[in-house]
């Protein structure tokens, strides 16, 4: 099952002023796997994702995607790499001045040459994947939290990315909607054969979708393994973290 490493990170460091967020992080994510990054709030999970996609510049270290270093790339080259990526933001980050249709078509119009018919067809097909064809002409302000996440997911996958990044995909949702979103992420990953990095502290979500996971704490990787291995760990920090998560569920 595990193939080539799609994402390779070596000795990644990032600080904001005197505050060290990532402390020489190294990890590999393999083709087709769902890789979970656990950690408490402020442990550096989102910063790690933003460094990988080039929204933040690390202080030192190396990030390779498909064997190519993505640090110090020109904007054009970085954008070429980004075309193979999708990103679901914590608050979905839908463009609130645009309808759902325009949100989905935004990256397609600007990066590809589709005809109007092809754009409409692609939009409808992608919305069908997340079960929201009826929302095509709605504005983001008319959508519930769960619907926004689904539309955000649809916008991220409409370009058929090879790598997906999820930043807290279930945060702020009720347990039922959280489970639905987690199942949807897993289904889409299987259908589109994507590699995914999921930042979360939702154990239920991780149990549904994870192939492998790490736990971050104060910028360091505390543990790495499958969810079963992590939940069975003797590490006091992990036991505390997972016991809180189980109580929350």
């Amino acid at each position, binding site marked *: 099952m595990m193939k080539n490493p799609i994402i390779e990170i070596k000795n990644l460091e990032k600080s904001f002023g005197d505050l060290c967020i990532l402390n020489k992080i190294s990890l590999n994510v393999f083709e087709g796997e769902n890789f979970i990054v656990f950690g408490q709030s402020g442990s550096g999970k989102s910063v790690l994702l*933003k460094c990988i996609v080039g*929204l933040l510049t690390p202080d030192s270290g190396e990030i390779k995607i498909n064997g190519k270093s993505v640090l110090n790339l020109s904007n054009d080259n970085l954008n070429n790499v980004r075309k193979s990526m999708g990103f679901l933001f*914590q608050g979905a980050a839908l463009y609130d001045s645009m309808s759902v249709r325009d949100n989905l078509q935004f990256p397609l119009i600007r990066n590809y040459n589709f005809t109007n018919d092809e754009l409409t067809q692609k939009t409808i097909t992608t919305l069908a994947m997340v079960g929201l064809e009826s929302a095509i002409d709605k504005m983001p302000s008319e959508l519930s939290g769960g619907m926004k996440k689904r539309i955000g997911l649809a916008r991220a996958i409409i370009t058929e990315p090879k790598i997906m990044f999820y930043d807290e995909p279930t945060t702020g949702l009720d347990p039922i909607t959280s489970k639905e979103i987690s199942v949807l992420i897993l289904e889409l990953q299987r259908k589109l054969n994507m590699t995914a990095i999921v930042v979360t502290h939702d154990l239920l979500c991780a149990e549904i979708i994870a192939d492998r996971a790490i736990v971050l704490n104060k910028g360091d990787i505390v543990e790495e393994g499958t969810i079963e291995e992590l939940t069975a760990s003797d590490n006091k920090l992990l036991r505390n973290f997972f016991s809180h998560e189980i109580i929350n569920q």
Partner: protein
Amino acid sequence: MDIPKIKYLRNASFQDKLKGFFLTISGLTIFNLEFFKQLFTLPIEIEQIKKHMSELGVKTFSIVSIMGFILGFVLALQSYPVLERFGATDFLPATVSLSIIRELAPILTALIFAGRVSSGIGAEISSMRVTEQIDAMEVSAVNPFKYLVVSRVIATTFILPILTIYVIMISLVGAFIAVIMTDNMSLIYFINAVVASISFGDFVPAILKTYVFGYIVGIAGSYKGYTADGGTEGVGRASTTAVVLASLLILIVDMVMVKITVWLWPSIG
């Protein structure tokens, strides 16, 4: 583009404020350089520019109409008794039109435009920043600076001169109405006197400087919005500081441009 971040402290000392001032100047310089770099790169967001121009025109049309009319009306009412004292009421159309065209219409329209538009741009872009919409654009391989900033700044640069010309006309209408309420001057005489008193050196520099004012309004709003942080508080701050920055820059640039105009066209000094 690395723009220096300004930390907003509730009880900022004089030193912090001074540091913030210099960081704003350096940030604004980097932002302007990035604008000119992006201005000449493809694609040109024509649809966005057209959309912003029509939105900005509609947004400010009513307020500048009222302002323009009252400006001309009040200026004529105030000037009449003064000119009457010297028996020079015949010079009223020339006095009023020159004041309006050379200075009052460009500067007041720009300040009203700054208040209405800079804050709007600051609020719009900053709310996109704090809700990660700008990050989402960047990750989608779309250049957010080009899409959000360049298109808005081009729109403000080209719409303000049009609004100013409109305000000049409305102001002259206001002035004429004030004049016929106090004097029996005919419309033909008023128009002839206005046309005879205006020269190239009055009209062209005044309109040219409104292009710069329009640019300032767009760039100040965009800069404050694009560099916002700190959630909803950051959105409010971006919106208000954008107006302050734009108004201040407009007044400073006006002073410099009037001096340049007088230097280039000494006859109008």
